[in-house]
């Protein structure tokens, strides 16, 4: 098996610095056998169903992007394993919004090979007992990797189903011990004018910033992701570490994180700053609250819905209402859009 190292060309993805962290081919294949056994009925029905589609997906799409493998175990988190058809890897890795590399959906795949992912550190700042600087190797070891198959709904009206690899952001948050006064988290992403052509343009203020309420960030579905489709993240999808918040519009899931800051007051996220009347802080997927310029009632599933198919209905909280609805109990979702 090819082992990518940090000195390899940057478009080959990123890997663990520790060779012990790299899944051996034998273990990888063994795991697939284990999954198939699970699927054959060795475990509970829901886990078996997960294993079946997982084994299926991995058999069909082993190392679809030829990047370093990063395999996650099954997740027991409610809502973490949608049974919907997984979007083809080619679509998920070629149709991206990552404005730092250009505003066209094809730009990130074309230009993100320059993303300087080595070495990578994430700063922890603000209202925490243990601020500091975590390097990627530490983050990768912080908690066991899980596979989470999430719907991803873009605010523009399209969606995908992506098998992410990572662990709940809450694992990291617990580790750094937020103070009682911490109520929000601000996520800052990389803005490197030298390597990111979009940062040299003036599409928006850089760096790109996102935010979550602490209880949203602590929700087990909120994922700190390092991989997808059994591999490390392709650069255009936000390597080496990104946020995935499946019940919010995609732009809330900030890519290529460099700083996580704990705050008392609600931070201003980049889209909220650029167009406050169009993009709220919460930006929960909500078919009942239209974007000022278009309807949010329906969506097109990329790679699945045919050209002549009607667009499918968008689900409240992107279908995660059972899991996250209580976070917003009593809130006017038209006001806090």
């Amino acid at each position, binding site marked *: 098996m090819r082992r990518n190292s940090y000195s390899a060309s940057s478009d080959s993805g990123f890997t663990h610095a520790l060779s012990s962290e790299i899944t051996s081919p034998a273990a990888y294949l063994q795991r697939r056998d284990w999954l198939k056994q699970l699927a054959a009925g060795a475990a509970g029905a829901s886990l078996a169903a997960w294993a079946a589609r997982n084994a299926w997906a991995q058999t069909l799409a082993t190392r679809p992007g030829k990047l370093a493998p990063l395999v996650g175990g099954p997740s027991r988190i409610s809502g973490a394993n949608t049974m919907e058809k997984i979007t083809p890897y*080619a679509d998920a890795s*070629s*149709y991206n919004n990552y404005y730092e590399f250009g*505003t066209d*959906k094809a730009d990130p795949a074309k230009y993100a090979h320059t993303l300087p992912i080595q070495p990578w550190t994430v700063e922890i700042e603000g209202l925490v007992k243990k601020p500091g600087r975590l390097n990627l190797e530490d983050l990768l070891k912080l908690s066991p990797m899980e596979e989470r198959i999430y719907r991803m709904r873009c605010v523009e009206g*399209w969606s995908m189903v992506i098998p992410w690899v990572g662990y709940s952001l809450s694992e990291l948050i617990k580790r750094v011990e937020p103070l009682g006064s911490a109520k929000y988290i601000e996520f800052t992403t990389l803005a490197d004018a030298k390597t990111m052509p979009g940062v040299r343009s003036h599409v*928006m203020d850089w760096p790109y910033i996102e935010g979550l309420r602490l209880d949203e960030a602590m929700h087990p579905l909120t994922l700190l992701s390092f991989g997808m489709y059994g591999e490390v993240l392709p650069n255009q999808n936000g390597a080496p570490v990104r946020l995935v918040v499946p019940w919010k519009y995609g732009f809330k899931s900030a890519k290529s994180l460099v700083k996580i800051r704990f705050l008392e007051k609600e931070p201003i996220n980049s889209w909220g700053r650029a167009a406050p009347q169009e993009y709220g802080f919460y930006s929960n997927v909500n078919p009942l609250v239209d974007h000022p310029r*278009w*309807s949010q009632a329906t969506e097109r599933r990329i790679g699945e819905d045919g050209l002549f198919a009607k667009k499918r209905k968008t689900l409240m909280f992107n279908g995660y209402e059972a899991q996250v609805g209580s976070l917003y109990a009593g809130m006017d979702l038209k006001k806090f859009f």
Partner: protein
Amino acid sequence: MMARIALAGLCLLPFGWLSWGAFHDALGANPAEYLIRSTGDWTLRLLCLTLAITPLRVQFAWPVLAKFRRMLGLFTYFYAVWHLLAYSWFDMGLEVSDIAHDIAKRPFILVGFTAFVLLTPLAATSFNRAIRTLGARRWQLLHKAVYLVAGLAVLHFFWMRAAKSNFAEVWLYAAVLAVLLGWRVRRWVQRTKASQAI
């Protein structure tokens, strides 16, 4: 005759490619978006070509070009029809109420739709008999609406790209159309002066 057939073939090439791509899943991750945008791009390109005929004909004393203007104009309309159809069908599922709602909600859709509506009578009166029936003067006056259509088309494109502040292509089309319209204004001014001098 051969030249006109060849030109028609050329004008149909993008349509051929898009149709082939649509049925062979070769238009990327979001074929609906690709078709809507490409048909819009080709409408603008053919509009620029149509409006370039007269300046090129006069400037280079190349009268044979006049033969192609009508065909290019009709192909502009052809791609405009597909642009509107692709949007109505692939984006709106041919739901008339959704389309009406969208036109009211999005100014850039309204502007594009208006441009299409204005272009329709021009396409409908592009036959010799229509020119005779209307009379050359009135026909010409009616067809001056194409300049309004050009302005609206660029505004439509500008507004669509405004969400991402991605204006490079918009400025390109705007510049081409500005040159073509500027040439006409200059000629009009020169002619007016010339007639006053007499």
